[in-house]
């Protein structure tokens, strides 16, 4: 019999430290599979964030660096400019990218830095214990919004992909999810395209990955993937927002 599904070799054979049902593991696997399939293992350099995935370098058998909180795109910019023949990507959560790191990814996109950002959006701060994130959706209950996110006090959630569309330096923008097999297959396709855009030297690429945080959402893993489908996907529609071929291809 032929092995049709196995752990990518780039991922070290160690257990993830993530909570049960946390979909960081799926996102890690997809990035690893894409690096493997594109044959860029020896030239890929990743930049880790601060947050639950701060230990991402413990899992990938490639060169990695850990940026200060929110600063991964700035670090990636430096690496890519010094080593332009490498494939440089960041892996960041929503607390890292969309809060303290807002200036970093927006300006990296504006400058058209030839890096790829993998942005994990789970609508909450994970590592610090479930506080409201910029991406927390309206009405969502968190530790710091016990009555639900409210527009008077907390304002509106950030839609990162939509926000970057007008920037000329942003070459590829897509939003995917990792809560169903179908979404996961699409996620891998778009992550691969983002890396291909970088390999072709076309500019900045970002893939936003809607991810489940059962622990801080206070749900079981099965309830969490359902909550993601029913609450996050309507607010954060999936699809490609910008691609070098031109035009948005939402599906």
């Amino acid at each position, binding site marked *: *019999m*032929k*092995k*049709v*599904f*196995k*752990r990518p070799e780039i*991922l070290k054979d160690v*257990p*993830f430290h*993530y*909570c*049960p*049902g*946390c*979909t*960081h*593991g*799926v996102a890690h*696997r997809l990035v690893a599979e894409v690096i493997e399939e594109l044959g860029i293992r020896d030239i890929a350099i990743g930049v880790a964030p601060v947050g639950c995935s701060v230990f991402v370098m413990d899992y990938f058998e490639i060169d990695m660096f850990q940026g200060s909180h929110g600063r991964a795109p700035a670090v990636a910019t430096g690496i890519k400019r010094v080593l332009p023949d490498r494939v440089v990507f960041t892996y960041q959560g929503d607390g890292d990218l969309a809060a303290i790191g807002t200036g970093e990814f927006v300006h990296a996109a504006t400058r058209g830095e030839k890096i790829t950002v993998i942005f994990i959006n789970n609508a909450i701060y994970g590592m610090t214990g479930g506080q409201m994130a910029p991406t927390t959706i309206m009405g969502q209950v968190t530790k710091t919004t016990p009555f639900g996110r409210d527009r008077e006090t907390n304002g509106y959630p950030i839609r990162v992909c939509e926000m970057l569309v007008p920037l000329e330096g942003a070459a590829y923008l897509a939003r995917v999810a990792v809560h*169903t*097999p179908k979404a*996961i*297959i699409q996620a891998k396709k778009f992550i691969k395209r983002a890396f291909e855009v970088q390999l072709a030297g076309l500019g900045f690429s970002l893939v936003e990955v809607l991810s489940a945080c*059962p622990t801080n959402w206070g749900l*079981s*893993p*099965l309830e969490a*993937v359902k909550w993601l489908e029913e609450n996050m996907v309507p607010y954060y529609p999936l699809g490609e927002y910008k691609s070098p071929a031109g035009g948005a291809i939402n599906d």
Partner: protein
Amino acid sequence: MARVIFREERCKGCRLCTAVCPRGIIKMSGHINEMGYHPAAVEEPEKCTGCTLCALVCPDIVIEVEREEKAV
């Protein structure tokens, strides 16, 4: 003919695989593994088609899938 291999010691018992199996043959075991979770396991393995959906959704890469190559 297909076979799924569960690395029981890596399973955190999240049950995501049980919900996506089109044959409904993945169940949670009664015993606990060394991490303290009830691991997922396949009942009636002969019914597995090797569709890989369980492996796709598993966040902990517990599952490997083997399948006979179909004659084209």
